[in-house]
């Protein structure tokens, strides 16, 4: 029986974060990128929880609640933006939104 230590959780969180980050870098669909952001946020949440459990303190879990609240608010705004982008160019590709560039 392998004991599931804190390291495992942290490793999982790191993998999830990397996937999310990679997705941000290589995908151009706004919806997918949004999901990648959520993935990264949740990996951070996982880290908080793991650390909270490891040290036996409550602060990490409180932070997670804040992150969840912020993330849900962000979803509302973000999805609205994505919908209006889609309406405008009938595609969710962010590469078409290059008007602000040097």
């Amino acid at each position, binding site marked *: 029986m392998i004991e599931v230590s804190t390291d495992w959780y942290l490793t999982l969180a790191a993998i999830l974060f990397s996937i999310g980050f990679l997705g941000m870098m290589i995908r151009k669909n706004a919806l997918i*990128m949004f999901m990648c952001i959520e993935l990264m946020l949740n990996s951070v949440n996982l880290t908080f929880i793991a650390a909270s459990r490891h040290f036996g303190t409550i602060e990490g879990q409180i932070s997670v609640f804040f992150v969840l609240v912020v993330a849900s608010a962000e979803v509302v705004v973000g999805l609205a933006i994505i919908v209006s982008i889609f309406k405008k160019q009938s595609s969710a590709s962010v*590469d078409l*939104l290059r008007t602000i560039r040097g």
Partner: protein
Amino acid sequence: MELLLLVVVFLPLLTAIGIKIISKFLNELLLNFITINSALLSFATASGMFVLLFINKYEPINLKFFTWITNPEILFEFTLDGLSGVMMLLVTGLSVVIQVFSTSYMSKDEHYAKYFVYFNVFVFSMLLLVMSGNFLVMFFGWELVGLSSYLLISFWSKKQSAAKAGNKAFILNRIGDFGFLIGLMLTLNTFGTFNYDKVFSKVLEGNIDNLTVIVICFIIGAFGKSAQFPLFSWLPDAMEGPTPASALIHAATMVTAGVFMLVRISPILQFSETGKLIVIVTGLLTALIAAFSAINQDDIKKVLAYSTISQLGFMFIAIGSGAYVAAIFHLVTHAFFKALLFLGAGAVIHEMHHEQNIHKMGNLKSKMPITATTMGIGTLAISGIPPLAGFWSKDEILASTFANGGFYYIFWALSLLAAFMTAFYMGRHWLLIFHKDSGNDISDIHEAPKAMVRPLLILGVFSVFIGFINTPFFHGLEKVLHETLHYVEITHLPEGITLIVLAFVSIGAGFTGLVLAYLVYVVEIFSYFKFKIPFKDEILALSANTLYLNKVGDIIFVKGMKSLTRKTAVLIDGLMIDGLVNKISTLFYSSSQKISTSQNGLIRSYVVYFGFFMLLLIGLFIATPLVVN
């Protein structure tokens, strides 16, 4: 009593301001009344002060008006001694005469009131200069004289030549003023005061190191103001101003300022042999060049202008040979006959309908007898024919130069040559205008109006008799100046037979000059005998163009300066300053162009940057050791 000095000095200024303010309500008659009465009052007060001075045996009267600067203490002070007394009388007296003449000459000019405003300011400046009690007040007057002469020379500023002549006078004067200014600074630095008496007593006390430098600085100032070589070319051009204003510039104010100043600083000047030598050599050079140039001038006023320069040269010769009394004496006599000649020329110009070429005149004596006679007196006076004024003063200068001995004999001989040339060109001047019948139509010429003739008559009388104020038999002027030049070593005239011989030699020079002028220009002796002077045309061209000094100056200073500034503009301003600024701006532009390509608008590249710097930050956290308080 001292406060009356303020009346003399400031009355012209008040008149100028008054005329300026109420000029709209004045017609010419009313304005004449105000300005001439003010000038008369000024002259009367000046005469009263001079009598007072005489009673006090020329003991200087000092007036401390107010404290100008506190540390070092410099007062706005005036002094009235023999020297400033003579100058004061001269300036106020000639101001009256010339203003009377001006009322007729300038009548119906559109800027009639403005002319008298400038005129009065000019007189005020000169009075401030001569009555000054210290160097700084003198400099104040000195600069004001420069300014007001500029205003008068370019009075008809709609004419471009007049505006240019005014500029030239002002700019050339600035060169001299620069020397004066340096001299002032050195004076304050060396003596710690500007007061004449204090400075002079310190000079007499002991050795001053940079005495020669100070003296030379002041001499440069005098050269500028008194139109000495090489700063004289503004004076012939200054003819662009109204003729009575020229008379004022040439006779009483402006050009005499340099001579006055050198006599004023004679207690310093006497200790500097170098300074005296510079003065006499320059004076001699100026006298000769100007006399030579006057021989072939066609403009009635230019001949007189060159003759003024030449006579100023004589005054500088006198100063250089230590004959300060003779210099002031010549200044006084010259003021009268030069004012006479200029006003006479003004009358002629007025009657000739502003024709100034003397070849277009001729035989005017039949039409303008009084002008011709008075100008004839002026011509004889300047040529040094006894017993007229010019003889006494010029002979005194020549004799004093001779009395110095040594190589001053050469200076004497050259001055004699200048005196001879003076007689020659003045003879030519008078003969061509009044005597020789050049076949021009002069039927509509009349004698000048009374307001012009009367000043001529007054000046004519003075030109005859003013010489008697200082003859070998009666040292009037020398007594007046005695207190002023108390500490100064003055070259005295030679005694007895030498003086008589010298007098006859100088009379001979003047007389020969006049006779030669008659022979050459009226009898036309050269064409009569079919004699050809070698290089005649070249010499005449050289004379008419003042030895091409103007051209040389133009090439060296004007063209040279222009090309220098052009080069500086291209090299320093264009290449270095502009280049540097442009380089910096292009550097920013090109680098920002390069950097701005990273802002390509693709979100994923921003994410990459973000991730990169995030990693960097994490790496930094790991690399740095943990600090626990």
